[in-house]
């Protein structure tokens, strides 16, 4: 057996390891019995019916709203910050870069605990729930958005801006008519990464929920204490498909791949 053939064998094994559990989850959601039989016996949509009941749809919609709000706010905050960090050299810039990447470096779990304490001690207890979650999610999504926007700014030749300026365009006009349209796909990609990060988070959300204001990930986690339920498998598949569809659509429209590899370019 040639080394390359052996490598292919290993690669097949790794793909089975990576995708197997996800495919098994999908398979058992169609099971007839309420046990996790695999290969599935019979075919039933009853668990999917239950997964689409308000008990599960409500946290799902809650997560979508939270993710959307977190993505929009963090991207809006990220644009000027990325522009400042990518285009200006000023005192304190290094500290600001470190602070921006901070939420990426420190465990989100710890930030969640810290935010819980902050809201309690500051007498903002009634904001624990959607507001506290939103604040926390914006914080942990910000590095992703800033990085992605910064990457697209770096790939933009500064000459374009100089050309616009030399033709008499004001700073804001240059920004609006030259820079913004050219980094639009970077901004969209940043927002998508932020949304996915928020939608899949559990470590931070864990500490900031209140009854009725629970993201789907935390809801599933809480439900798992009661053991296996095929409904949960169906819910899992739904929460898995939503970001997948979103990313596939955006990838078609603007292309995200560049930004995943963009991380390689040290900017």
């Amino acid at each position: 057996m040639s080394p390359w053939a052996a490598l292919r064998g290993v690669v097949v094994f790794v793909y089975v390891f990576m995708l197997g559990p996800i495919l098994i989850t999908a398979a058992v959601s169609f099971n007839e019995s309420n046990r996790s039989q695999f290969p599935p016996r019979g075919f039933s949509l009853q668990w999917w019916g239950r997964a689409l009941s308000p008990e599960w749809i409500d946290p799902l919609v809650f997560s979508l709203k939270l993710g959307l709000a977190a993505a929009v706010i963090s991207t809006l905050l990220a644009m000027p910050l990325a522009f400042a960090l990518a285009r200006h050299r000023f005192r304190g810039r290094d500290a600001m870069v470190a602070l921006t990447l901070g939420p990426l470096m420190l465990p989100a779990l710890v930030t969640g605990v810290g935010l819980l304490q902050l809201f309690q001690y500051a007498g903002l207890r009634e904001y624990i729930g959607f507001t506290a979650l939103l604040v926390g999610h914006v914080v942990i999504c910000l590095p992703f958005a800033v990085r992605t926007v910064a990457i697209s700014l770096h790939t933009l030749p500064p000459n374009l801006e100089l050309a616009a300026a030399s033709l008499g365009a004001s700073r804001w006009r240059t920004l609006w008519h030259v820079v913004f349209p050219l980094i639009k796909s970077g901004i969209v990609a940043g927002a998508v990464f932020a949304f996915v990060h928020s939608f899949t988070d559990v470590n931070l959300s864990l500490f900031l929920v209140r009854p009725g204001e629970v993201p789907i990930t935390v809801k599933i986690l809480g439900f798992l204490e009661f053991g296996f339920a095929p409904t949960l498998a169906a819910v899992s598949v739904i929460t898995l498909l939503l970001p997948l569809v979103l990313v596939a659509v955006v990838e078609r429209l603007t292309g995200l791949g560049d930004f995943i590899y963009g991380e390689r370019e040290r900017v």
Partner: protein
Amino acid sequence: MSRTPWLLVAAPMALLLVFFVVPNALLLSTSFLKSEAQTLTGELTLENYGFLFSKPIYQWAFARTFIVGASVGLLCVLLGYPLAYFLVRTKSRWKGVLIALSLAPLLASVVVRTYGWYIILNRFGVANDLLLNMGLIHERIAFMPSTGAIIIGLAHALLPYTVLTIMGSLNGINPNLEQAAMSLGASRTRTFFHVVLPLSLPGIAGGFILAFSIAISAYATPAILGGPATQVMATAIYGFMTQLLDWSIGAALAVVLIVSSVLLLYAASRIGAKQAAI
């Protein structure tokens, strides 16, 4: 050096100061305060740390956290390196699809992906059913809750990060070096072990430490695949903050976790592993 563009940075910096720096500073200070009957007193103390480091149950939680982290890092590198190498070198026209497929799991929450392992590993799960049907075992085996199950679940969750990191470093290797080695008579295998592997060591170290540092602060996987007997730092923090309501000790644990992560990332930067930059 120019003036600080306050107009651009003020809002995001204010947000990070109030909702990132302050909460972490708060934790740090809480960890040095004595708490009585679930309320903090103003008294400074090292008791919280003393408590954690003297009780065997927490000593074990620390040890288990790091054993899990190191094992997850190792497993991620062992599984991720062959895949990364294959994805970088393959001439297949499915290359793009294969890369997308290896990163797609990142779009699913860790909770959802760990749930797949729960379905496989629980007492009445897929693994037990299959082994019983094949006649390999006669009684159901408890694969979980266990530290091993946590390690497998986390390695599964973090593998894409390691693959991405290693692919980055393999992509950066000048192909001419390999050609030079082969034109001088080295076989493909020899070239790999003497040229490619050494040059990709920073990627391996980076992927290992990235998986390690995320694994030690993961909550969901140890909560799902572990139990009371397999506490790790993250689950212990959750217990102190939400059930035992001893915030001082919870904060001290959180500080230990922060320090561990920072030390790991510092080690990574010393080894020369690529770090996030703007």
